[in-house]
């Protein structure tokens, strides 16, 4: 099916304005939205199935051949991320419906769908400026979602988030502009091709643009020292939105893998992989700071935000290692951390609601309804998140560590990853102990029990952790072939530019 590549982008767009026409009928919106998500799930699955053949599926928008027109490129990586986004979004949406979050302000469903439009667009586009546009789409949607429902702290976090991202967008344009000014093109594959012929005297400027672009993606990916937007934004967002945001940092990482990995790939000569060592270095700093942040958090949601930061930092390190093994490991860890982080944000909200007045603050609270169930789920998620065995976080980390041994800085990398892991374990043990063991009737009234559907959403996302362990073999086989495809820049260039020259 020729349009399959475009459907993951078009479906949420059409869904978005269909939802706009439903007015204020919340039930209709929910049903329509769930139907749309189901459709998207099918489309994403089919897209992944197509990608599994190992071919690149191109979609020439407007029937203009690349590099002139905008092209969507579906390969294993983009297909995987689209499906991942859909799964995460489904969990977040169900939770939002279960907790009536969608009812707390206008346009939740529209913004949600358009957020997916932006995300899937960013994952599929093969054009750097179009990537900018999709970044803006997903950002503006995320602004709306983040502020959904209102509240003082949320507003403040939103303000910071918006301003920082506006600075980021400005930097993005500077970088894209420079790259266009030097390379004369916007198509990523074409840029990569032109990098091969870049005269030596032009390398300095292109390198500057490349690192500037790294800063831009670094903001999204929450790389030190650019992550300051993250803790408050994630901690203050409505839970369902925070869960969906688990994919937001991954967009930054994806962009680095896609854009830098291609443009500054092997063919770039002296500029090949100029970004890698910075990713590695800054990833390590980020991880250390994130672990300290987990430790220093004053509330559960803040802590989860820092845990997300830590997982992103781990990914930065893995990507910075820049070997096939490390990249494959990073993809495994990416899927794991996205779904688990989503689950954890939802769970934090469940806990926070149940603790009533205490919310998610680290002070002893009342005995929660269903304390055994919630406590067990918390423990499992904490284990997965901090990278303890036997859940997926551990195996992802081990693969990354294994890959790190080939690097010159292996001692530092291993030390940072393990020590920060320890700090997080200690912190999470303290948190669990406080929330569940210290809970007592004397600490006030508990809130109402959470709806089964809400808990089900958490559990559904959480199943990723054991599944990724049990099916580690086929899944790592997939990440390996994905990485192989990813590292074959030449094939990507040839595939994207294969039609260049024929007029439509």
């Amino acid at each position, binding site marked *: 099916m020729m349009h399959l590549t*475009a459907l993951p982008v*078009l479906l949420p767009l*059409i869904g978005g*304005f269909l939802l706009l*026409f439903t007015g204020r009928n919340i039930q209709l919106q929910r049903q329509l939205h769930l139907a749309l998500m189901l459709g998207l799930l099918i489309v994403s699955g089919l897209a992944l199935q197509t990608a599994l053949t190992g071919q690149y599926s191109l*979609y020439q*928008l*407007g*029937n203009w051949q690349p590099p*002139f027109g905008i092209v969507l490129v579906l390969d294993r990586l983009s297909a995987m991320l689209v499906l991942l986004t859909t799964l995460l979004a489904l969990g977040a949406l169900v939770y939002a419906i279960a907790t009536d979050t969608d009812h707390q302000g*206008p*346009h939740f469903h529209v*913004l949600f769908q358009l957020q997916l439009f*932006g995300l899937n667009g960013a994952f599929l586009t093969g054009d750097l400026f179009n990537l900018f*546009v999709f970044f*803006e*789409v997903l950002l503006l949607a995320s602004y709306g979602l983040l*502020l959904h429902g*209102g509240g003082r702290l949320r507003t403040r976090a939103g303000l910071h988030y918006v301003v*920082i991202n506006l*600075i980021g967008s400005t*930097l993005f344009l500077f970088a894209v502009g*420079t790259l266009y000014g030097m*390379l*004369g093109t*916007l198509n990523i594959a074409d840029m990569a091709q032109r990098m091969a012929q870049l005269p*030596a*005297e*032009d390398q*300095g400027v292109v*390198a500057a643009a490349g*690192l*500037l672009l790294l800063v831009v993606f670094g903001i999204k990916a929450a790389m030190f*020292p*650019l992550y*300051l937007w993250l*803790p408050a934004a994630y901690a203050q967002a409505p839970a369902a939105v925070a869960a969906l945001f688990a994919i937001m940092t991954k967009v930054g990482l994806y962009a680095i893998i896609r854009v830098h990995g291609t443009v500054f790939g092997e063919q770039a000569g002296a*500029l090949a992989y*100029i970004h890698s060592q910075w990713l590695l270095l800054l990833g390590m700093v980020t991880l250390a700071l994130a672990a*300290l*942040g987990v*430790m*220093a958090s004053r509330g559960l949601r803040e802590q989860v935000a820092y845990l997300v930061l830590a997982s992103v930092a781990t990914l930065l390190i893995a990507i910075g290692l820049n070997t096939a093994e490390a990249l*494959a*490991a990073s993809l495994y860890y990416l899927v794991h951390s996205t779904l688990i982080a989503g689950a954890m944000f939802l769970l934090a909200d469940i806990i926070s609601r149940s603790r009533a007045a205490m919310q998610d603050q680290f002070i002893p609270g009342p005995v929660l309804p269903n304390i055994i169930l919630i406590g067990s789920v918390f423990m499992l998620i904490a284990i997965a998140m901090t990278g303890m065995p*036997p859940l997926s976080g*551990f195996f992802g980390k*081990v*693969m990354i*560590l*294994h890959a790190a*041994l080939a690097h010159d800085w292996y001692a530092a990398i291993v030390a940072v990853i393990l*020590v920060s*892991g320890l700090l997080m374990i*200690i912190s999470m*043990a303290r948190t669990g*102990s406080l929330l569940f*063991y210290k809970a007592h009737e004397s600490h006030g009234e508990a809130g109402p029990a959470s709806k089964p559907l809400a808990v089900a959403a958490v559990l559904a996302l959480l199943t990723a952790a054991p599944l990724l362990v049990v099916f580690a*073999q086929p899944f*790592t086989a997939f990440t390996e072939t994905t990485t192989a495809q990813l590292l074959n820049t030449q094939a990507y260039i040839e595939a994207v530019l294969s039609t260049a020259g024929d007029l439509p």
Partner: protein
Amino acid sequence: MSFLSVNLPLVALLPFFGAPLAAFAARYHRLASAWTAGLVTILSLLFLLPSARFPFNGDTLIQSWDWIPAAGLEFAFRLDGLALLFALLILVIGLLIVIYARYYLSDRDSMGRFFAYLLMFMGSMLGIVLSENLIQLLVFWELTSLTSFLLISYWQHRQDARQGARMALAITGAGGLALLAGILLIGHVVGSFNLTDVLAAGDEIRAHSLYLPILLLILLGVFTKSAQFPFHFWLPHAMAAPTPVSAYLHSATMVKAGIFLLARLFPALSGTTEWMWLVGGAGLLTLILGAYTALVKHDLKGLLAYSTLSHLGLITLLFGFSTPMATVAAIFHIINHATFKASLFMVAGIIDHETGTRDMRRLNGLLKYMPHTAVLAMIAAAAMAGVPLLNGFLSKEMFFEQAVLASDTSMITWAIPVLVTLAAAFSVAYSIRFIHDVFFNGEAKDLPKTPHEPPRFMKIPVDLLVVLCLVVGIAPMLVAGPILAVAVSGSLQTATPDFSIALWHGFNLPLLMSVIAMAAGVWLYWQRQIIYRLHEQLNERFDGKAVFDRLLSQINGFAAMITRRFDKGSLQHAALWIIGTAVLAGVIGFANQSAPLFGERALLPIDAISLMLVTGLIIASVLTAVLHRQRLVALITIGVVGLIVALGFVKFSAPDLALTQLSIEIVTIVLLLLALFFLPQLAPAESDKTRLWRDGGIALLAGGAVSVLAMAVLSRDFMPISGFFIENSVPGGGGTNVVNVILVDFRGFDTLGEIVVLALAGLGIFAMMRGLKLPAPKLDFSGRDWSNDPHPPIMQTLTRLLFPLMLMVAVFIFLRGHNLPGGGFIAGLIASVALIAQYLANGIDWTSDRLRFDMHKVIGFGLLIAVMTGVVAMMLGYPFLTSAFTYLYWPVVGKFEVASAIAFDIGVFLVVVGATVMILVQLGKLTHEANHRQQQEQK
């Protein structure tokens, strides 16, 4: 696939499957979970036993499956002698513990939870000892940390239980991570994580430059788990656990996991000086320290805990000797210690259970209340003290012998036998204390309960273990010889050295040492009050827990300090970092390449107009920055910047841009004015002058960097793809305005995204506005009343007059867009401005009454139309957004073009109008409501 090729994983995993069953069973009956746990343990044992013949035949059974080849991880199990011994210990003692615990737990304790945890722990331990793959071993290793956390904190309402559990988790967790690092390095060196390969590569590992790091990391794991000095302090605090847990974890299993690993990796790591010093040193220190502390503890379980430490030190020291015979002694003592210490813990549990206290200063003369228990305790304690006829004596003798042997090898090792004897003396002393202070020594002092014998079945496990102590002590080779032999061979991975364990070895140095230790032990116990006093004085200084707590709180403080210092919650701080990093990134990127900054492209000459425009631009920009505190002024000056930018676009051949910029400029001013109404008119002066200078500095730096960057590009030639657009604009896109054709056709997808952004802004603002309340300022910034003429009539009349004219212009700009500067965007903005002018001049009510469009719908339809043009193409079998155009001829009208891109542009137009008007009018309504509220209040 036969049973014997899959049973090992089942042995380890069965308890995990059993755990939820046990928890679930408790729902039906309290005891059902105990039965489940017992049956699962027996089942596991039954699964294991058929394979026991392999080790006894000298074979190693390996069962493995691929898992994550990338990380060298296989799902692989191994059964050799060592594994068998430990698996048996875990299962057999585990079974006894299950029986014991069923009676120990009170009605208030949740049985389901306990047995579920216990089974998970058992599975983890089995996993450790049965693993063939080191990573997998580590998985189970960490699982023991987690499950023991759950077990230790079982009585979660008790603070000491929570803290003890967390400390145990922190220490053993840390060790586990070190172990992971060590294992990874081993894998790096050997090229495999499978024990078969690793154990065969001992020489390779020892010769490798990474040997020392590997050793240190592995030992960190071992020492933390086995509570060796200096990580010993967590163990006593873990005694807050229910006694069955202590009996299981801290005698036979968890603390033995470290010892197991020493035995396991013995062929790979032992034999070097580093090994001897590190392993031996830690063992010796722990041995002495533990023995001493055990004597001075008044808590029954405390005594046992430190005694355990001491015995683990003993075993460690034996491994440190690095000889085959020492290994024999070590493994033998592992068996012995497991039996007598488990029984002693159970006894302690019985006493605690029946009397309500464990304080030996209160417990006295229990003999007459529980004689049976007393006898059991005495035998087990004698074994601990190393009294002949009991198993403890035998392994202690072997240990003395090894200590003596070791002392020959180098200079200061003479100290080893001496210290070892001293430790043994303390061991005798605390063993006596355990018996004398509890069962004799006069009458008990105000016990919470009246003691009596425990239920029969609570004693049966102890009976069995005590019998084992005796049997082994009397006929060691018969009872323990075979399993010891295979275990040693499994550990050494070579043939077992010839050994013979007998009660009587003749008069030799070890026997003399035993005698001295006995005598000295009695004397020490007799003089115990002196030691207690001494200890009291030293107590404060050597508290491992205090050190740990201090360290943890320091780390916490450090974490908080760093986090709050970097994540200040300050936007300025965050922005400064980002901008600084961006500048730095550019500079570094450039500096790392040895390329010239500027190229050699011929530059355009400067003309007067441009010079003037740029001068104006700079003045206005700087003025905005300087006068920003006077907000209205800054708004005016920024308007000038926008105007000049637009002029610049015209000057440099970009009329479309100029038109867009001009329109946006005006809308922006209105927008900012609407908002400014609610903000203070003057920003307060900033008190922090250094910050101003710093920001000024970074601003100049950023500006300079951007200038240089721009110049670096502008001074070079490039080969853009734009020629394609110019060539294909008319034939392919049907329009002569290339910019517009790019927007609606070549890159229509960008434009689609862009109108979505605009729509989102509108919707987002609409959502944000709901419930937003702001007080309207009653007076203007200089304190005057506002004018009372809301809609000056002259403005009203003329603006209304202008409305159709502006719409006409909008249509004009729209229609020509495809061929000449203009298009949907600009037309949309003009139409918006026309509407906004009406709102401005006539007021919201008046205008809204006459404008009956819901802007939501306008946006929706705009998007719909834009998307539909793309979807129609899809239906015709072309990619999304493929355009089509044709020329029609109508009479009178003549030839004209019809293009699908125009439809797309209509969509753009509608979204722009809808979003812009919605945004501004929403804002306007805010003031409207605010004023309205105020008027109501005045009434």
